[in-house]
């Protein structure tokens, strides 16, 4: 199938080899991991990856952020299963997952579905929930991943509705989802500062760069998904007879975006906007970001650069400049060019 990214690349007569290489590498690793785990099938479990593997952006230095997603009765055997999964994943992707404990463990669907906002939601739960929606891929039993996503979206869309407007117009943008997406973006940005403090700026460079590119891309995905009823709705969505059907269809439409990698979803909207300058700001920049991450030496320098030496480190300095182009493109897309997005971001983005 032709992707929007490929269409854009062709239309602009551009070449984004790092994006293509990362996608191909992701497919290869996901294929290996899926095969390695295939005999661990369980009707109520799915091994899900997020991070670069979930976004189709794996490079040589990528880890495999996996979780054992359980949607069914709890069973002590799940712990044994998780250990076996860890061994098999590490045999293919040796790099350790991050130290926070957010990944590489059992995740019960109950918390993802029931603890949305409120006092029992945690930074970890918010992270897992939004990443499940925005950048996840099932290595085993995709039905379980999809089922949990549908239940999470039910909370956002089916069970949180505004009072109907006097005009009879239905609420097309689910505020609860949008607010959580915005909250997660701000949490990522705040956590960057928190980790600077807690880890004495260790590894700050690569986190800073990711915030400028891949984390920002996740936020863009979240906004586009929350706006899906305005951006991607089939005509029949607005022809359904009653509210229940309308919100079921809206949730289903948003669910279908969870199978689209963030960069591809962004490309679809850029393609629709028809502004080549925006495309030339966004995608070559992102390609350069992935290109640098794929270079082990440059990645190591990003990981090690001292805060005080930032602008003397070529890899960081270059990506900082490139990120400003990426930001300019995304900002113009959302605020200036796309006819629907600029209205949506004005109406829902801040106030």
């Amino acid at each position, binding site marked *: 199938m032709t992707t929007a990214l490929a269409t854009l690349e062709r239309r602009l007569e551009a070449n984004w080899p790092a994006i293509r290489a990362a996608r191909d590498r992701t497919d290869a690793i996901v294929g290996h991991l899926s095969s390695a785990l295939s005999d661990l099938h369980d*009707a*109520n479990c799915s091994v899900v990856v997020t991070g670069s593997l979930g976004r189709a952006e794996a490079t040589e230095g990528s880890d495999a952020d996996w979780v054992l997603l359980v949607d*069914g*009765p709890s069973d002590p055997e799940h712990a044994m299963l998780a250990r076996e999964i860890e061994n098999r994943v590490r045999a293919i992707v040796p790099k350790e997952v991050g130290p926070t404990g957010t990944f590489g463990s059992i995740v019960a669907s109950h918390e993802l579905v029931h603890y949305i906002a409120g006092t029992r939601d945690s930074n970890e739960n918010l992270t897992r929930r939004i990443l499940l929606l925005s950048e996840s891929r099932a290595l085993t*039993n995709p*039905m*379980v991943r*999809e*089922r949990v996503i*549908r*239940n999470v*979206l*039910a909370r956002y869309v*089916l069970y949180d509705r505004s009072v109907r407007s006097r005009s009879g117009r239905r609420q097309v943008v689910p505020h609860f989802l949008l607010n959580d997406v915005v909250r997660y973006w701000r949490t990522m940005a705040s956590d960057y500062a928190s980790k600077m403090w807690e880890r004495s700026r260790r590894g700050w460079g690569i986190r800073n760069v990711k915030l400028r590119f891949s984390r920002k891309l996740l936020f863009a995905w979240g906004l586009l998904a929350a706006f899906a009823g305005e951006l991607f709705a089939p005509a029949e969505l607005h022809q359904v007879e009653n509210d*229940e*059907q309308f919100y*079921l*269809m809206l*949730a*289903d439409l948003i*669910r279908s975006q969870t199978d689209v990698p963030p960069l591809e979803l962004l490309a679809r909207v850029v393609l629709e906007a028809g502004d080549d300058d925006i495309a030339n700001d966004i995608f070559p920049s992102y390609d350069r970001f992935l290109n640098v991450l794929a270079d082990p030496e440059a990645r190591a320098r990003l990981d090690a650069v001292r805060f005080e030496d930032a602008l003397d480190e070529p890899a960081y300095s270059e990506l900082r400049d490139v990120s400003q182009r990426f930001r300019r493109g995304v900002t113009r897309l959302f605020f200036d060019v796309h006819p629907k997005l600029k209205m949506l971001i004005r109406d829902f983005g801040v106030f």
Partner: protein
Amino acid sequence: MKPIGFSTGALAKGDFATGLALQRDVSRIDAVELSALRDHELPGLVGAIPDLDLADFDYVSLHAPSKLQTLDEHAVFELLLGLPEAWPIIVHPELLQTPSLWRQLGRRLCLENMDDRKTMGRTISELRTLFEAFPEATFCLDLGHARQIDPTMASAMLMLREFGDRLVELHISEVGSHGEHLPLGATTRQAFARVVHLVPAQCPLIIESIISAELIERELETVSMLFDTVAQQAAIA
């Protein structure tokens, strides 16, 4: 009021005679699905049909075997081909290994949506592919299977919208975490209530909840109330 009854297999596993007998004296039952879910049951069931007393049932269907263990695909097809033409033949898509063979059944072939233990027929897109391969086939919507795949029931709603004109039968039960058919629980009833108003008025309801004989009336009441309540709400609206 929709025709309503049980699958014989739900009331008496592997024993269609008992499954029928248990329903015959229940006044509100006027539909039945004869079950031959295990292929070794099929020859005996087909052989007994001329002598079965089905006078109490306005609607009769037959559920074909879900797996082939003692018969091959052609033998199963030949047995099913001889059934009364008015009976829908409910089939799990995995049985259909030779499509050209099964297309001969035309509208009698009734495809059921599947649970997550199967590899096809589970989602809208998988069903769409199947109906392209079997354009005349009718549709049996298993609400429990649909809810197991999508607890919000959006998929069931979309199936009813897209394949509603093919619908000839509805399967009703709760489906447990290991695919088992159970009596309807409270959350399942709430989920089903989102879509039952989309089920055509005369569509037969076949209950697949595995229950003992003394619970037949209660399960019938539960299912009837689910549809009656929604119908009343629709009438008021």
